[in-house]
Structures are given as C-alpha cells and as structure tokens.
C-alpha cells in the first residue's frame, strides 16, 4: 500500500483531531454557543401510555409541544417551529424503524403537522430511515429533524440521537471500530452538517439491556413515559445514557454500566466538537411526572 493512501477510517481519526483544534477557536455546532449550556428538556406524563400499553396521542402531542417550546426557550410551540423551519425549507425527518422499538408513527405524524403549520409545503417534508441517502427529498433537504427511541446496543453501548445518523454514511461499517467511538463524525457529513433543527430522544419505553445483535425483550424495557428534546444531540444522548444506567442499577441491583461503554457520546464533545456530553455543561429542564425519574 502506498504511504500516501488514506482509508476512510484514517479520515475519521484525522477529522476528529482537527475538530479538537478547531473547537478552541470557533463554535462548531450552529445553534449552540460554546459558552452556554446545552438545554435538554425531559418531559414525562404517567398517562401517555395506558394500561393496555397503547400510546395516547393527545398526551404525546401535548408533551411534545410543551417540551419543544421549552427547549427553544420561547413562549409557544408554533413560535419554536417558526424559528426552526420556514416556507422555503425542505425538511427531512430522520426516524428509526427498528421493528421492535421504532420511532412512534404518532410522533412522526405530529412532527409533520407542526412543520406544515410553520409554513413548509407538505410535499417538501419527508420521513425516512434506511433510505435517506437515496431519498430525493433528503438529498435536497435544508433542514433535518432527528427522532428515535433510546436503547442499549451491543456494539456501541447505546443507540441514540448520534447513532441515528449512521444511515447518512455511504459506508456505515467505517464507524464500527472501537465501539463506534467516531459516530460524532457523522454529523460533519455534507448531507447533515448544520442542518439539524431539533433532536427528539424517545424515552417512552426505553430498552436498558440487550444480549447481542438485534436482541429485544420486553423484560428489558420499562414504561419511563418520557421524551428528551433539545438541539444538542450529544447532550440528549448523555442524559439518556444516565437514565439507562440508573435503570440498570435498579434492575440488576448493582453498578452495571452499559457494555461496551458508550464512548461515542463523550468523544462527540471532546474529539468531534459537535455538542456537550459533560453534565456540567448541560441544563436539564424536568417537566411533569416525577416518580421513577432516575435523574
């Protein structure tokens, strides 16, 4: 192999190093001042899932609206959406369709409604997961909304907001080494960089434990009945991880951090400079049901 050749993995390592250098001089994530804390809104409602395990749409909508307004620090959800998108935008909603624990269809529908209400033409809104790279609308997207459930993951520790963008990579396996430590680099891809307006980490029934690929067992989920909403994907994942690990402590009756450790969350701050993982840099706003809060 020529000494001048460079692999994609080399590129990821170098991109990380340059991010650290760049972070010293300028803000790297568009909607967040490095001097400020990242605001994360945790909203919960004990009735959002009924006794039969059914999602109650009207409560979900209310939670989503209230948390969105608080996340953007404005008076109403409509004002928040008008800040995020406008009539000229083409908006891609990056969802997650994993068959055992997908982004709720009700939430997708609500997000789309709110975007339409903010003036975006319905035909300029797309919802996709695995097809984002080939989806014509996502190719033209000027704004992205990122929404997925939080779950334990056997290779990266957890799957959250950061990992949800792996489908924007033409070569996802490039992000697998070292427990997927470089997932933060996804957020610098041209299809993504600077476009994300809002992140939603769905914590309605998170999965706190798994044994190997594609493992899902309701035994390892619980009705947390929450949403985490904010503009910083790193901060959302960091808070979500703390909740998952607190649940694991309760369930396993011992300290039981996720394994492998979710290194990519801290690395997204320290190496890739796309948000804050350090709790001291996160302003956590808690709204609603407090029982079993775990954080």
């Amino acid at each position, binding site marked *: 192999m020529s000494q001048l050749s460079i692999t994609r993995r080399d590129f990821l390592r170098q991109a990380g190093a340059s991010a650290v250098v760049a972070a010293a001089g300028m803000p790297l994530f568009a909607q967040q001042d490095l001097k400020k804390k990242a605001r994360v809104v945790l909203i919960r409602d004990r009735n959002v899932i009924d006794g039969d395990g059914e999602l109650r749409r009207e409560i979900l909508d209310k939670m989503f609206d209230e948390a969105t307004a608080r996340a953007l620090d404005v008076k109403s959800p409509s004002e928040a959406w008008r800040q995020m998108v406008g009539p000229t935008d083409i908006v891609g909603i990056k969802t997650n369709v994993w068959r055992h624990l997908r982004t709720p269809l009700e939430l997708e529908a609500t997000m789309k409604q709110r975007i339409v209400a903010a003036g975006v033409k319905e035909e300029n809104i797309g919802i996709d997961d695995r097809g984002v790279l080939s989806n014509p609308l996502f190719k033209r997207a000027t704004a992205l909304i990122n929404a997925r459930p939080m779950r334990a993951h*056997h*290779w990266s520790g957890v799957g959250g907001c950061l990992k949800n963008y*792996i489908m924007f990579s033409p070569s*996802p*396996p490039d992000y*697998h080494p070292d427990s*997927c430590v470089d997932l933060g680099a996804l957020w610098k891809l041209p299809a993504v960089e600077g476009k994300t307006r809002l992140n939603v980490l769905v914590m309605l029934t998170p999965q706190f434990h798994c044994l190997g*690929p594609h493992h899902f067992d309701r035994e390892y989920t619980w009705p947390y009945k929450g949403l985490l909403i904010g503009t910083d994907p790193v901060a959302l994942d960091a808070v979500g991880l703390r909740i998952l690990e607190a649940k694991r402590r309760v369930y396993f009756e011992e300290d039981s951090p996720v*394994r*492998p450790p979710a290194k990519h969350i801290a690395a997204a701050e320290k190496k890739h400079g796309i948000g804050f993982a350090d709790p001291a840099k996160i302003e956590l706003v808690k709204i609603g049901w407090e029982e079993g809060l775990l954080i």
Partner: protein
Amino acid sequence: MISLLLLCSLIAPSITPDQSLMQPLLPLSIHQWKAFGESRPYAGQEIFGYMDGAGEVYRAYDYRELLTQRYVHPSQGEILAEIFDMGSSRNAFGVFTYMQGRGPAVEIGQDGEYKNGLLCFWRGKYFVCVMTDNENEPAREAILELGVKVSEAIGQDGEKPEILHSLPKGRYLPNSLRYFRGKDILNTHYYLGEGNLLCLNEETEGVLVRLNEDRSYLLLVAYPDTEKADSACSTFVAGYMPDGANEGIVEKKPGKWTACVAEKRYVAVVFDVPDRERAVHSLESLKGRLP
C-alpha cells in the same frame, strides 16, 4: 423407494453450482410454512448489507458465510432462518455464548435457547437463528421443528474449546459464560479500558464467567506459549492495576478486588471479588486445574 426419494427432495434439496454448500441444511417447508424465494448467501462485508452493525459480532468470530431463507404461511407471519458457517466449532460455540442468556434452554443442537419467537443454537461449525415477529403456538412449534431439522441435517457435533475444562465446574452461572478471541468481544462483556491490555489477538482464546457465590468475574486467557502469557500479564498489571503491580492484586473500588496471575501459558484474572482472600483463593484453585 419413490416416496423415500420424494421425502429426501423435500428435506434436502440438491444444490446447484451457484448455491451455498449450506443449502441442504434448509428444509423446503416446515408445517404449513413454505420456503419463499431463493435462499440468500452472504460472505465477508456483505453481511453489513443484511444486518448492519450486527455483522461485527459474526466477523469478530471469523464467520465464513451466512445463508438466509424466508418461510411463508398462508395466514401466519413469516419465519426467517439464518445459518452461519463459523468455520470451526469453537467459533460457533463462541458466537452462541456471546449472546446466551436470552431465554430458556432447549434441547436443539449442542446448546440452544428459545424465547419470544427467537431460537438460537449451535452445532458443529454452525450457529443457527430461526425467528418470527409474530409468535404464537403454531409458529413456536414450527420454529422449534425447523431448528430440529437443521440440527439433524448438520449431523455432527463439534468439540467445545478445551479451555472450558479449567473452569470451576458448578461454581459459575452457566449463562454468564462468554468464549472469545479478541478484545472487542471481551469489552462488550467486561470493559478493561482503552488499548489491548491483555494482548488479545487471533492466537489467543479466552473465557469469562461469573461465579455463583459472590458474582465476581473470572477470566482465563490462553496464549501460544508461556513467554507471551507472562508478557501479557505484565502489560495488564501495569495498565489496569498499577497500584497493585508488585503483588498482582488490588482493591479497585471498596469491596471490589482484582487479582491477576500468569501460570504456564495462561493468564487468569478475577474482578469484583468482595475480599482479598477470596480473590487469592479463586486464582490458586484455578491454577491447580490448568493442564
């Protein structure tokens, strides 16, 4: 004779030149489920196209080929069968242990588990998963029956890794056993930190278990020779437990002792042992069982 030939053609279809050598392991039908479409083989990085990042586990255990087949029923959900040629029985056993603990044991293959519409087992050099998203009684019966047929078609058992003989029989949680070769797999079960402190590679093999009496962890790694074992032990002690470097034992957290020893071509480590004496005792008794 004609009916026997017909039966054979239903159970073990002949293979064409472009088909996988594993094709005969898959029946054409099971109960009312019929094979739908052609089976699909995957090798190397192709596995990522089929199962995304999940493929890393099989690659870490050096899988050779994956063959998948869908089965459809007129009124029930699909059943999916996946057969992995892992190249050796050690790797097939290893990948099974990577994810064991998902459900109650079933007597299919050499070790098997079934829960919530997912059957996993290993036999010989094969690891097999059969699953449905729509579990009910007929689907459960069909999945288990399909597993039995695949296991019968495999025909031959494989040897379990010799290193297991050194474990303290009956003193560990069977579902906690993880057999592995590289550090990535170990780190998903017990995280040792950055780097490769135990110098794990394709020449090494290791086994991790959790002990019954105090839920501490026992890790045993085999190296090609004594020199490599001694060197790995020194690297591990220096990197993981520098405070206990002289004695190879340290209290990492209150009530959580870690101890490490090299013996012959092995390195043994105990983690999270509640007191020093037990940590020493665990390692001493393990040393006595090494070949």
